């Protein structure tokens, strides 16, 4: 999916450096389709905001082209790009009322008064804030301000909306509610959305595709399910969701890989980015894919010895920490079902998993 030029938004070999010494964005190639909801996910300082700012026109790319609808936009000033933007701190103009804030983009586009008012009202109703037009931003709660910021970014009907951690300041419940609202609006209006977040749950639940950033590069660009279940490298595997890792060395590789773990145990795994015999590898297994009841496993599945270290009751699930193959941080998650076993610390058990849930990745 790299190097394409047929998307609505295209980053073509884009590089960015602020100080002329280090590259903050290294060779970014990304194509975003029309109407797509794409999320940029990554740790702090990985260059997400920088990418967004280059797209919005507040930073210039040091090298490479950014295309919008097929046209290069490197030399178009921000106010002519017609891109809606929601800022992390909302950036609602404090000296204007909510309605004036919303009318601002329409005013600067010289839209007539009657038309303007109708559009503002429609935008307010779209975010269920119809009655708040006369208030000042300071008189609104965080969630309400967030909605107004969203409405303001959408009121002039841009085809592309950028959002930089728009939900970062909200509490969990409101955040979940707003995640739903934003995706609903984006899909209903058919807008292309580029969304930046730290929060992997947010990325997984909202997006059509997720771009995982690290160190100025996209590590993986994929649908959420693919990203979670089929991480292509150890960074993505560890960054997305909870993950158990076992270190070892590739013993044999033909279709599946045979990995000898550091304590001598040998297991099957799917080779993802290991190529040769003798490579160091990091084997990753998701906690919820580990089975403690051998009866549920297909015959022939590999069993391995484990010692229970800790058992945590979490309501809907049990979280158990085990020692497996010398790793004390091996976590499993089991559903709280009537027939489920509660393990006791000190117990010795046999655990197992399907070979396709076990991925041999590069060792960091």
């Amino acid at each position: 999916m790299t190097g394409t030029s047929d998307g609505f938004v295209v980053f073509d070999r884009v590089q960015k450096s602020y100080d002329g010494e280090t590259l903050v964005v290294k060779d970014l190639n990304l194509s975003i389709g029309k109407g797509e909801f794409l999320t940029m996910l990554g740790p702090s300082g990985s260059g997400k905001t920088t990418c967004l700012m280059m797209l919005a026109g507040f930073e210039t790319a040091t090298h490479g082209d950014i295309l919008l609808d097929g046209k290069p936009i490197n030399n178009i000033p921000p106010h002519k790009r017609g891109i809606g933007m929601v800022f992390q701190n909302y950036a609602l103009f404090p000296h204007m009322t909510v309605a004036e804030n919303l009318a601002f983009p329409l005013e600067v586009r010289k839209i007539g008064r009657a038309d303007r008012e109708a559009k503002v009202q429609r935008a307010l109703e779209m975010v269920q804030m119809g009655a708040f037009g006369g208030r000042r931003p300071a008189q609104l709660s965080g969630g309400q301000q967030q909605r107004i910021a969203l409405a303001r970014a959408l009121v002039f009907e841009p085809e592309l909306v950028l959002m930089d951690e728009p939900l970062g300041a909200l509490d969990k419940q409101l955040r979940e509610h707003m995640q739903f609202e934003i995706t609903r609006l984006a899909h209903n209006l058919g807008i292309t959305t580029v969304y930046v977040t730290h929060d992997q749950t947010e990325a997984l639940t909202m997006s059509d595709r997720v771009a995982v950033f690290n160190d100025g590069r996209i590590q993986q660009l994929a649908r959420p399910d693919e990203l979670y279940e089929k991480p292509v490298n150890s960074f993505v595997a560890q960054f997305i969701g909870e993950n158990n890792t076992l270190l070892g060395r590739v013993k044999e590789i033909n279709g599946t890989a045979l990995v000898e773990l550091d304590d001598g145990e040998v297991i099957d795994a799917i080779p993802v980015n290991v190529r040769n015999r003798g490579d160091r590898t990091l084997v990753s297994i998701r906690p919820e894919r580990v089975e403690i009841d051998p009866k549920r496993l297909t015959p022939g599945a590999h069993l391995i010895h484990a010692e229970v270290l800790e058992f945590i009751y979490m309501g809907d699930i049990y979280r158990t920490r085990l020692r497996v193959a010398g790793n004390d941080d091996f976590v499993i998650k089991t559903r709280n079902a009537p027939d489920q076993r509660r393990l006791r610390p000190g117990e010795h058990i046999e655990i197992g998993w399907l070979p396709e849930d076990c991925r041999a990745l590069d060792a960091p």
Partner: protein
Amino acid sequence: MTETATAPAGTDTGPVLAADGLPLKRSLRRALRAQKLRALMLIAPLLIFILVTFIAPIADMLFRSVENQIVAETLPRTARAIQDYDPDSGTMPSEAVLAAFTYDLTAASERKLHTRLGTRLNYEYTGVSSLFRKAGRRVDDFGETYRDQFAAVDPAWEEPATWIALMADPDWVAEYRAWTAAGEAAKAARREFTQAQPLFRLRDEVADVLPETASAYAEFARIAQVEDGDDPAAEDPWAPVYLALYRDLLHVGPGAIAQLGPEAEAMLDAAHDAVEGFETVNLADLYLEADKDWGDPGVWGTIKTFSSAYTPGYFLNAVDLQLTPDGVAAQPEDRQIYIMLFERTLFMSLMIMGSCVLLGYPIAYLLSNLPLRTSNLLMILVLLPFWTSLLVRTSAWKVLLQQQGVINDILVWLGIVSNSGRLILINNQTGTIIAMTHILLPFMILPLYSVMKTIPPSYVRAAKSLGATNWTAFWRVYFPQSVPGIGAGCILVFILAIGYYITPELVGGTSGTFISNRIAYHISSSLNWGLAAALGSILLAVVLILYWAYDKLVGIDNVSLG
């Protein structure tokens, strides 16, 4: 567990009690009182300092601007007597008023107060000062004729002892003798003698029988004793005391004289019989002889007008009006300067404020948008003027702005102005505005900078992403948020400018000086403190009114120092 937490729920009526059984409100108050007391003690030194150095001088200034006790204190008898005088009659006041004035002026010139009074009245009526000085030199002779005639009737009238016997309270005489004896004894024993003289007291009846004489003599005795440290029993009374005696005896009945006892009666009766035939002098003529301007009813009208203890006169003067015997009138054309000075001060302060905004805003904007290191460095340059003396900076402007100065030289060298057409940049309004804009600029930049620093760049970015051009984003989004800084800067600069003194004094010449320079002139040169106080009070009122208007228009909460 949960039950025990609701223990005091049973007492749901009556006041809430604290743990020690006292009402909660009272124990809270007591707890807070200690805190308040501590807070008060912390601010007490500053509070006292402010009271002494700021509030008290302002109160004193406000008081001085209406206070006028000097006339009533120096000329008490005249102030009372002159109330019936009508200056429109075109004549001098009656002999009774002139007599009262003579006693007052004699006392004043003995105490050397008449020149001060003359100066005070000269503010209101030009020329009065020299009248007082001249008359003050002669007034103690104004009863000479009568003294000679009384002496001719009975030489005892020239004896101080006669007067003591006639006027003094016998108890005082006894006390006085005792004091003198004690003094002698101490002197003989070479002891130090520090006991104060017993103060002269009039005898009871004399003030009723011989009112003017009693009043004049008592004044004489008091001044002799207190001011000169002399012995009234050994001093000849002033000539005007004889004038008073003559005037009293003309009116007194023989029955009244009898009240003063047999000894006095004999002497007074003889004098009483003689006064009818005395050669008289006209006081009015004596004054005209001293200076013919005493015949000007305006002089007497001024004394009458300003004889009350409080006067609006200074305030009227401060707005180019004057208080005349006929009421409020405009000052003569050539003395109308204060309204013009107030207007000029306001106008120039506004100009200075405006140029500070124009020059300071871009700088503050630049500073607030630069990286911290650079902006700190530049901020030092902004603050640099604070580290040099005001006097040095102002003098530097003198060097720069003179006609043969650096700026003119450069302009001539560049050919922008011709050598003969060198610009006049100093000793006028231009000079004051240039120098004061420079001096007050940091007071504009600092609040602007600290407000602009708090405006996140995301606002302007948001505006641009919404389609606003650079200018619209600035004008509609950035500028309104910087208004509190402009407000704070403007208030600071304006209030500092309106009261500025030293710079206009040095570079303002005559056309570029402020009202404060005039105030300083009245404080230190003309010594008309009342007028200075009135001008100062008006300045204070103008600032307060402008502050109030600003609050109404912009809202003082919209002022932010960051």
